[in-house]
């Protein structure tokens, strides 16, 4: 009697173990790395849960990686097969990952017009390197004009209006400025440079730091800083934030990351960056960074991964991430949603992206920053002219690239 009982228990236990094993077998686990925190993370996780509810066979494990270590972790882990199946990162390191190989899975095979048609063209362009698409665009970030409604009721539309409005509100003696932005940082300055039709690389990936358009853009910046004196000296992100929060800066050029730092007492408005009368009425064109979703090449579940990537960049997921995470999705159809369209911040960035230009994703881009920073500092401190500083920067970028390629 007793032995029968034991046997039954044993068999039942064995059966359980087997069904358990079978269940585990049927589940595909995808590991996804991202760099989100706070509301962005909550929205992202909600979207992941939505996907899992709709797809029984796939479980997704998300891992938030601290931003400063993120890119190096990808570079080190993915090619050795120890990385995630899917990861989210901006496009600036993409070219380097393609060049070093065995990191990103090319997606051209999966793509058709229906899928590519839903993205803003410029964001898909940011995901393209050497004629292949290496990731699907998820969100974009660019700078726009953020102003204090108490100080400015009608945001300027042209650079002439901008300077006029800023001059009225500037009083350097008490530390009050009409316009404040991190203009010595090349990323912020790029909106002026691109507005003049300049750029740091040409179509053939050759550096063009000192092209005449770039110099003209810098000369305009210097008239703002030095001639009209509407900008604070030695700007830094911390300084801009505190000026704006103290009501001492009326207009700021910054991106979505700035909004989280604005104090509640400030009533903000957003507007598209002004057009440049000095550049024949062309709009200021900020650099846009695009967060892409990539499938890692050593992944063993690429089909499932692509299903997830498609879902993540779809309309349903985009609406959640926009409304709950405050993200600006690269999927155009998201903005047809009534709630998204009614959100002033989301629609402001949607309008700004029309003039934005994706930041180059060439591996050589990383060589550009430090000479550009040196040049910007020399120019805004007037220890060098725009032309001379950019000639020097051009020389240095060329020198760095050639030393790497020898």
């Amino acid at each position: 009697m007793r032995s029968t009982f034991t046997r039954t228990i044993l068999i039942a236990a064995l059966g359980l173990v087997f069904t358990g094993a079978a269940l585990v077998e049927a589940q595909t686990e995808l590991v996804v790395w991202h760099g989100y925190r706070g509301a962005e993370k909550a929205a992202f996780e909600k979207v992941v849960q939505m996907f899992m509810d709709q797809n029984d066979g796939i479980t997704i494990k998300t891992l938030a990686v601290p931003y400063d270590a993120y890119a190096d972790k990808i570079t080190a882990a993915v090619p050795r097969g120890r990385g995630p199946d899917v990861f989210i990162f901006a496009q600036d390191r993409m070219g380097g990952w393609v060049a070093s190989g065995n990191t990103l899975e090319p997606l051209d095979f999966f793509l058709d017009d229906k899928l590519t048609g839903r993205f803003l063209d410029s964001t898909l362009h940011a995901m393209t390197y050497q004629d292949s698409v290496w990731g699907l665009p998820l969100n974009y970030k660019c700078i726009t004009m953020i102003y204090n409604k108490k100080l400015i009721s009608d945001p300027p539309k042209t650079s002439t209006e901008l300077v006029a409005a800023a001059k009225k509100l500037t009083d350097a003696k008490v530390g009050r400025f009409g316009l404040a932005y991190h203009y010595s940082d090349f990323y912020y300055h790029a909106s002026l440079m691109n507005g003049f039709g300049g750029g740091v690389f040409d179509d053939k990936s050759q550096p063009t730091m000192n092209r005449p358009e770039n110099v003209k853009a810098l000369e305009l910046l210097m008239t703002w800083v030095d001639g009209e004196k509407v900008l604070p000296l030695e700007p830094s992100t911390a300084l801009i934030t505190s000026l704006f929060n103290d009501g001492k800066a009326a207009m700021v050029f910054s991106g979505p990351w700035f909004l989280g730092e604005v104090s509640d007492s400030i009533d903000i408005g957003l507007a598209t960056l002004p057009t440049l009368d000095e550049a024949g009425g062309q709009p200021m064109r900020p650099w846009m960074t695009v967060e892409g979703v990539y499938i890692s090449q050593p992944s063993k579940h690429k089909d499932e991964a692509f299903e997830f990537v498609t879902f993540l960049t779809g309309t349903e997921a985009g609406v959640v991430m926009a409304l709950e995470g405050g993200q600006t999705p690269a999927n155009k159809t998201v903005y047809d949603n009534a709630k998204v369209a009614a959100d002033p911040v989301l629609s402001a960035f949607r309008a700004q992206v029309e003039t934005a230009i994706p930041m180059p994703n060439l591996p050589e881009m990383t060589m550009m920053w430090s000479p550009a920073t040196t040049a910007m500092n020399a120019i805004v401190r007037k220890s060098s002219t725009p032309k001379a500083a950019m000639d020097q920067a051009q020389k240095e970028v060329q020198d760095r690239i050639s030393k790497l390629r020898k």
Partner: protein
Amino acid sequence: MVRRVTLGLILAGLVGALGAWWLAKAAVTVQNRGMHTRSSVAHLLMLAETAGVFLNGEADVQRLTAAFEEEHPEISSIRIVSGRDLVASTAPGDTGENAAPRRLQREEKDLFDLARALQASVTNNLDPTAPRQEEISTAPLPSGALQVAVPVEFDGENLGMASAEIAPPAPPRAPPLLGGFLVLLVPTLIYWGASRLLPENRWVHAGAAVALLLVALIVFAGIEWNHLADAREGLFTELASQVVEDASWSTARQLEATLDPVAPQPETWDVNDLREPLGVILAGGDVDAAAMSAELASGRRAYNRGLWLVQGIAVLLCLAFAVGWAASLWRTLKAYKEAYAYTVPALLGMLVLVFIPFLYGITISFTNLNIYNSDEAVWNIWVGFDNYTAILTDFEVFETTDAGRTINYQNFYWTLGFTIIWTITNVTIGVSLGLLLALILNTKGLRGKAFYRLFLILPWAVPNYITALIWKGMFHQQFGVINQVIQMFGGTPVAWFETPLSSFATILTTNGWLSFPFMMVISLGALQSIPSDLYEAARVDGATRWRQFTAITLPSLKPALIPAIILSVVWTFNQFNIPYLVSQGEPAGATEILITDAYKIAFEQYRYGYAAAYSVIIFIILMGYGIWQNKVTKATEGI
């Protein structure tokens, strides 16, 4: 002694001969595989060239491919891809419903991606300044076969890709090992015979043994190399005849398909993976003797590099035995075996955590490691002392531009000079300020001493990057508190980071603020341990306060202060945070110190090898300083 030397000779001969033989065996295998890949690529390129003509003329590529496979039994699973289509395939599963031509399927995504990658490489390589990318892909398969893929083109236009699996080559004939025994025997015999004639001096015996060993090893290596060279010549002749056959086969197939025949170009089939002709096979299918001997010579150089290592090891081994080092090492190990056993875990820890990374750093300082070649093997990017000479022989501290003579702040010697000034001034400030405060705090009967002490140690307790950022804010041109104070007294605000001198002042102030508490604590401790009767005796003798300070206080402080100064010099020399966060090297890198420069070279310019050389130089400077300091002060004498 004769016995010891003989043992050394036999062991070293064994190691040397086996090493050289193993090297030759590896070289034969590599050569065999390399030539096999080369001829496979040549065959496949011929097919690709012909397929290009066929695709362009819309002829039956599938038939061509099947015929090609029949012609070359070692090549199988040939697939030709064009866009999203599989235009021809001899892969086992691709028959019946699956037969080419058809659309590519999901499982064939890799083929599609590879075709696009090759196409992208070809486009990229059209730009002569872009980093080179492989136009031919060769990858080993788990079965031991090789997968080769080449682009299919016609008249410079990309039409797709041809890929195939190639069976592994027949194993090569191993190089002779017999000579190895001669190496073992001959020097030993000669030495035995001659040992009586030699004077009784271990160095003479060791020298003779090493000389004999070297001659024997060189002779042996020569025999091995000849085997290798013969094999290679045979492989070249074979390749040349295959190329001729291929060329006539291609023409025949083109005629058969009633196409306008395009003359085959055999000289473009023997290429490296960038599709650059290797030049050994000439247009007619002949072997270019000069190019072949050049290739042989470069092979010989590669073989010799390995050989030097083996011979070096053999010679050291021979010496170790002949001179008696091996014996004494053995004796020490045996005598203190417990001691060595106890220290093994610590030694292993040191090895893994300190010595291996350190050696790795030194190794990459001899390479051109950078962001583009980080997955290359070390010997492929070896540049010898190039990095060091580039750093150390650049004496152009001044450069002449349109604006006149200016200092080149990126120059190593400027940065070195600046770093030394930075270190000296900082340590001086830290020591004098710390000592002064310690003397004040040491005053007898001072009230609230504990409070002052706590208060003065605070700068040390706050994480130094926070301090650095606070100081950075205080030096702001418009909003910084320092300029506010200057303006309060009617001065004009200073742009602190505009000139090297004022920029230097900012980092000096910040680091001075950070470094005095340490010196103060050290001095205070030492001051309290000076017996007060010394001062009493001095007072009785009528010594002044100053005399007491120089004759009692300073000498008593020396044993504590000197090690602290040595440490402080090393810390300050490598004080990364302050220049990096406060002055950020402004203006234009003038206030960069060596360690921040090394960081920027590695992580902003991505030249890891160069940065490693920079770091090794920093290490050598500091080590030299440490040794010198120790010798001069004998600070560690008492320990």
